[in-house]
């Protein structure tokens, strides 16, 4: 099982969620984060003092899938989150050793 984590632009969340549900993922977890990659932020003035807004608001989307589904998930997310502009975000994939559904105690792919 794999955990696919995507950092996307906030307003793309709805599209990503729909794209993921279309390929049949069973759930997702999101959190607001701030970050920067190549998109470096910009300078603002607040009351005359410079203010580097280097961290821009992003949404982190986590979806746990069976290993087979990883490619599909990446494609779904990339397709939905892409605007072609800088700051579109990144996807990270990590391995899950175990998954447990608390309510039933099911484990492994069953639990997804």
């Amino acid at each position, binding site marked *: 099982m794999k955990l696919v984590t995507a950092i996307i632009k*906030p*307003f793309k*969340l*709805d599209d990503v*969620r729909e794209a993921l549900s279309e390929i049949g993922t069973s759930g997702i977890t*999101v*959190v*607001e984060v701030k970050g920067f990659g190549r998109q470096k932020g910009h300078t603002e003035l607040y009351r005359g003092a410079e203010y580097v807004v280097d961290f821009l608001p992003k*949404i982190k989307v986590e979806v746990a899938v069976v290993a087979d589904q990883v490619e599909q998930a990446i494609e779904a997310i990339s397709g939905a989150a892409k605007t072609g502009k800088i700051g579109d975000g990144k996807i990270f994939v990590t391995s899950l050793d175990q998954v447990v559904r608390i309510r039933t105690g099911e484990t492994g792919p069953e639990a997804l």
Partner: protein
Amino acid sequence: MEDILNLRYALDTFYFLVCGALVMWMAAGFAMLEAGLVRAKNTAEILTKNIALFAIASIMYMLVGYGIMYPEGGNGIIPALDFSFMFGGDNDPAAVLAQDPAGWYEGDYYSGMSDFFFQVVFVATAMSIVSGAVAERMKLWSFLWFAVVMTGLIYPLQGYWMWGGGFLDALGFKDFAGSGVVHLAGASAALAGVLLLGARKGKYGANGEIRAIPGANMPLATLGTFILWLGWFGFNGGSELILSNVGEANAVAAVFVNTNAAAAGGVVAALLAARMIFGKADLTMTLNGALAGLVAITAEPLAPSPLWATIVGAIGGILVVFAIITIDKIRIDDPVGAISVHGVVGMWGLMAVPFSNEDATFSAQVTGLLVIFGWVFMASLVTWFILKVTVGIRVSEEEEFEGVDIGECGLEAYPEFVGSRGSGR
């Protein structure tokens, strides 16, 4: 002379309207105070309760309450009823001007409409006290039903006993602007509700430990307190009922000064008391201290010197800190401290009257206190009980955990602020 009387009437009416508008503003104060002291997930609901109760009070008092509280001719216990106010009408100018100037202030010296306006916002104040104490777990609609009964019947009846010229007035009970009739009454209704309702889930641990449930928004709570402080100038200042000559103008000014002094005393005393007990300058206690000072002086804001007013307020401020701790210890869960501020300190306010006002007696004050508490508490208990066994008064455990905002109002007070949001950014 007619010109003079016209002016007098106009000035006293205007004074009444301005004071009434300030009291109306207290509704916003209660709303902000309570919204600041509950958790974010229960904020929209408490806001809804606060604006709806003000509206209900306005309507019920117009339809019924005013006609219970003020018509002349009752026997002191049972009021004469007169529900004609809703159809309008006011003093006839010609008749007003024909009154003998000597007995002017016993006659119709200001607009009847302005009288209603000033009275109606008092009812709403009493009701506002309740909403804070039962916050975060009471069903919205049951609360609103209670508001109908409280503002239509329970409050007006005891209001009649005192300010409508009933038996408490005859007894010599003194309550200038309502430490008893408004604040203790509100707190008594709240206490009855809380007893039937029980504590919030998680407030008291299985092993008896008391858990803190911090309020979500201190600026709102502070704003609410400042609003109430401002509004109280109308609440107490308007209760002098006359402004239009030197003696009365002096009296109104003294009431303003003493009201402010008592609030200041309450702030400093509560701040120091909390500092001594907790080692920190607990802001919420300080806010409660301001309100305690205000409640304490409300029963007699005219007679005291500024110094004594400050002391009356300061004692209120100390009292409220201990009352909140004690009431929490005996497992009465009052999220905003309403029972302590308006009930315990309201009693202190009533008992403090004889110290500065020679016409007051301790026995009359005790009687008044017991009558108000007894009637409002019992009548409320019955009302809450009927609601409990019929429509229910408490939300489901699940709704309580999730927050009543979603369950009762279908929206969140701060949909974006707690962690991430689903959509709509």
